[in-house]
């Protein structure tokens, strides 16, 4: 019994350990875009170059924790994550390395990539005011700050302050204007008793049902709904067009600091930034391509052009902690 038990236990241990060991692959990608579904752009890369891509999905925080814990031993070559703050954090933690690629610098606008070249946007999404077309006229809306006006009392739906895109919105505004005006704005929002709902799609449904009249939502959520139901009674309003421009955020990619297949990793990111791949991203999830040369999905093209806030999105990460503390101080839960 002894020998057999020992062998069995050892086998079990080895099996358990084996789940942690990575296999060798051409390019290993850690992607937080995995919950959007299969990425045709990555399949296209493999078809074009013959380089195999092994993809691991997870949410941004998990990937960050994992990369940090793995350190030099990471099998990952590329990190694709959502929200500029997450990219900034990853770069600051030393998880991403500098990429010197004139192609990427030409494809991606300056405010959508790291000033130090450690990460590059792949897609862009705007977080703007969305309103019920039957109850609100566009003339009534203007800026994010104007939502603090008492006329919106009880009519606003928001995500919680813990939601990373809420934090990024505040963070970029803090970078541009300083903390005081942003805190005034948030206090004004809170005074209007916003309804806090834990899903952008849910907020859209709440607006359509009449529970609230306006909300702050990422554009791709509305895109998804309008693609299935063009008569949905909610439309986007581009906030801050006369002032700072509408807040935008990104999903982006960077080469990891300890990548084992660096050249292929850079090739992958360059391909993903090319108009061909950008088209696939845009069509798949109703996002805006980061590369201005790519064309828009017809559903979102209907919304027209808008002025973006051209503060470098890295500020979403730089001022994230300040934004969180500001939200806590202002009572935005």
């Amino acid at each position, binding site marked *: 019994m002894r020998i057999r038990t020992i062998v069995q236990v050892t086998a079990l*241990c080895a099996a*358990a*350990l084996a*789940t*942690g*060991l*990575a296999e*060798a692959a051409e390019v290993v990608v850690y992607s937080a875009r995995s*919950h959007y579904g299969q990425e045709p752009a990555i399949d296209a890369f493999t078809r074009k170059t013959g380089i195999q891509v092994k993809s*691991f*999905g*997870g*949410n941004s*925080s*998990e990937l*960050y*924790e*994992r990369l940090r*814990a*793995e350190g*030099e*031993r*990471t*099998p990952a070559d590329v990190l694709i994550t959502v929200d500029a703050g997450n990219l900034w*954090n990853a770069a600051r933690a030393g998880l991403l390395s500098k990429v010197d690629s004139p192609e990427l610098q030409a494809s991606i606008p300056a405010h959508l990539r790291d000033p130090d070249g450690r990460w590059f946007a792949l897609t862009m999404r705007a977080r703007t005011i969305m309103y019920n077309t039957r109850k609100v006229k566009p003339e009534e809306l203007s800026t994010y700050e104007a939502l603090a006006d008492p006329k919106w009392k009880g009519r606003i739906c928001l995500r*919680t302050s*813990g939601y*990373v895109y809420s934090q990024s919105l505040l963070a970029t505004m803090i970078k541009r204007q300083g903390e005081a005006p942003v805190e005034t704005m948030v206090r004004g929002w809170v005074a209007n008793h916003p309804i*806090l*709902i*834990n*899903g*952008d*799609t*849910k907020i859209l*449904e*709440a607006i*359509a*049902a*009449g*529970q609230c009249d306006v909300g702050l939502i990422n554009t791709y959520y509305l895109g998804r709904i309008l693609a299935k139901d063009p008569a949905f009674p909610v439309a986007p309003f581009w906030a801050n067009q006369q002032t700072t421009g509408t807040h935008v955020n990104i999903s982006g990619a960077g080469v990891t600091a300890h990548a*084992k297949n660096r050249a292929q990793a850079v090739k992958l990111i360059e391909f993903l930034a090319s108009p061909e791949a950008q088209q696939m991203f845009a069509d798949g999830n109703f996002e805006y391509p980061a590369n201005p040369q790519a064309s828009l999905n017809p559903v979102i093209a209907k919304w027209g052009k808008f002025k973006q806030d051209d503060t470098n999105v890295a500020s979403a990460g730089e001022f994230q*902690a300040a934004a*969180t*503390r500001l939200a*806590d*101080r202002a009572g935005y*839960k």
Partner: protein
Amino acid sequence: MSAGADSAGRAPAAGRTLLAAPAAPLSAWTVAAVAIAAVLAVPIVAVLSSLLAPAGEVWRHLWRTQLAELVLNTVLLLAGVGAGTLIVGTGLAWLVVNHRFPGRAALEWALILPLAVPAYVVGFAFLGLLEYSGPVQTGLRAWLGPWARLPELRSYGGVTLMMTLVFYPYVYLLARAAFRAQGAATLETARSLGRSRLGAFLTITLPMARPSLAAGASLAMMEALADFGTVSTFGYRTLTEAVYRVWYGMFDRVAAAQLASVLLLFAFVLLLLERASRGRARFTQGHRPGREVTPVALVGWRAAAATVTCGAVLGMAFLLPVGQLAVWAFITAREGRVAPGFGALLGHTLWLASAASLCACAAALVLSYAGRLRPSRAVRFAGQLAAMGYAVPGAVIAVGVLMPLAWLDHGVAPLLEHLSGRPVGLALTGSAAGLVFAYLVRFLAVSVQTVEASLARIPGSFDDAARSLGAGAGRALRRIHLPLMRGGLLTALILAFVETMKEMPATLLLRPFGINTLAVEVWERTSEAMWQEAAVPALAIVLAGLLPVVLAIRWSGKDR
């Protein structure tokens, strides 16, 4: 959780001094038991050790802004759930034990069914049904006008109501057993001395049942403390939710561990409450109860009221949410939106749950048998320590497991790299072994209780006979005890299996890369408010959860 069993670590009365082996200094079984307990205690020690780290910026910020609110919210939630489950569970138990009304026999066991549904599943089913844009309120508005609204479900009241509906069976089961065990004699004495029926219930029955009621309520409160999915979906900020938020939102593992320590304090208090009340339960109902109380046959509106009350609770706690899930599952299946990876999801869940339940049973066997062979203080303490995990929230255990695993990894990795000759990712952190270990810490108590109770039914004379015929302890276990314990072992396996399947917070934090379980899938969908997509995995969990509930119903039936 099995109700009514003895607490861990108690040696059976086995009258075996005559042929007991002479006390060897240290038996292998004792060493094994103590070693198991020591290893399982490591996560809790790791969490507590974070208190030694200096208070970082995040902690100071939390202290200034949120901590008071988090503690208050947690206390209020526990108080609400405790009170709610006490009222509902005790009331239902009294109704069912002491009265006769139409449908009583079926309702008596059906009221246990909500145990099969995890709290976070009931939560999102109700939200989907009753929120502003959901079908009920939309219909209400169509019927009564746009001003018709229900009170906001995403609030303290909503969360407490959900948890009361899900956790009342803990109190119900224990109260029912307590009321049954009380004989007719005391009650009739009280009646003959002038008390009304209600008066006798309030002044005699309730106080005598207090230890069981307290035990049931503290179990419900422990579950409420550990809950992460429901409070997060409802936007109610408790300590458990903050642990996750601080770890993942603010990227500060140390602050998360420090928050977890505060949580541990709560858990410890609840654990003490539960142990103390169970201890006393043995003494208050020790002797034979004699004749059972004659139930009162209800008639007319009283009978109808009783049936409707029980039916309403059952409907709200089980039929409605499960029905809603079934409807959503049907819709997603018909529209072909069932996640393509569902098979893999199911496979991973089953595989992890099997591994965890097998390890739990093995460990439980070692602990119980060691306690039987050599009932020393050390082994008893080891048993209680090992079983403490069920009071500790999954999020805390996850934090506590990750710290030593990460430390081990950085020690082991250079060796592995040397052996394999290529860069190695993390071997232990985020591995299946780490996750199974966390499950073990959390759910060992469930297996230990069952295995111990099963072992205790075997008379000590069997051990003596085996010993006198020359069999060692191990051989006796294999040839005598295990075959006799088959039923108990199977039950222990099933209980641990299902608890692992339902577990979510620890799995969320510790899962291996690319591996998801049903519970985490439900969480991921509901955190994006995609109720319909969550329905199919949620139903799978409920179906699995029905297994131990059916077992629990059969056991409680045997009390008659």
